[in-house]
């Protein structure tokens, strides 16, 4: 355990087996909230749920890909996301220049994303793969939302069905989800 000098909420340090292990963000968040005096957040636990695994129908070079991202990305002219359980999503035409894309989020360091939105929204990479014939197509729009949603009920009842319905309309073969 190591004391943290410049700590806003107290002292603590989430332990890891080795320093190079992935950061256990759930543990960090749980312990941080505990120090703030919050009651424990009950995370969705889907570890025992069956994975929605389906076999691909066609080769990658013949598959249309839809990009879905939770980092709070919107295009200039769009209504921004609220930071309080916003369960709406935006449709970003996939020919939108990166310079016209923005981010808003309350819970992650947006420095990289504001510098280059492709850090959380790989639209240029997918355009390049489409242009190079590595994928069969890049769906006309990408779907984005602001993933800091605490209400699992609203997520399940509103956001997810809306996104799923739109993905089906786009007739995509593959959905690439980019969380933050």
């Amino acid at each position, binding site marked *: 355990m190591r004391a*943290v000098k410049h*700590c806003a909420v107290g002292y603590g340090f989430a332990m890891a087996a080795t320093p190079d292990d992935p950061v256990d963000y759930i543990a960090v968040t749980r312990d*941080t909230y505990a120090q703030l005096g919050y009651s424990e957040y009950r995370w969705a636990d889907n570890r025992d749920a*069956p*994975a929605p695994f389906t076999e691909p129908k066609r080769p990658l070079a013949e598959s249309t890909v839809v990009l879905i991202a939770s980092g709070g990305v919107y295009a200039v002219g769009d*209504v921004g996301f*609220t*930071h309080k359980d916003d369960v709406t999503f935006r449709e970003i035409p996939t020919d939108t220049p990166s310079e016209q894309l923005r981010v808003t989020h309350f819970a992650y360091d947006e420095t990289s994303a504001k510098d280059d939105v492709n850090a*959380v929204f*790989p639209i240029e990479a997918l355009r390049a793969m489409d242009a190079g014939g590595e994928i069969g197509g890049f769906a006309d729009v990408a779907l984005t939302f602001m993933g800091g949603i605490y209400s699992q009920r609203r997520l399940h009842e509103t956001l997810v069905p809306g996104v799923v319905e739109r993905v089906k309309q786009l007739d995509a073969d593959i959905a690439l989800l980019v969380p933050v």
Partner: protein
Amino acid sequence: MVPRAVFTDFPLGNTAGPPNAPDVQLAIARSALENIHQATAPGTIIPLDHGWGAPWKDEARQLLDHRTTRFDTPQYQEASDRAAAIAQHGESTATG
């Protein structure tokens, strides 16, 4: 359980690769999409070996609350984005 995934061990906010590194971003997107056909079992998570290049995990493990205020009205990166949204969607929609 996820159907299949690749894992990028980068600081939060860089899921798809470091900023201004299009070659790395492309390699990551390619790995993610190639995993669609490579993964034969549900829940296959492939760690990618792109390093971040600088130490960052000690800081990420600190028990700090980095969240900003959770405003319940639409938020914008730039003030001009708010004006653009008002122009397209009207004041009440764009500002909540």
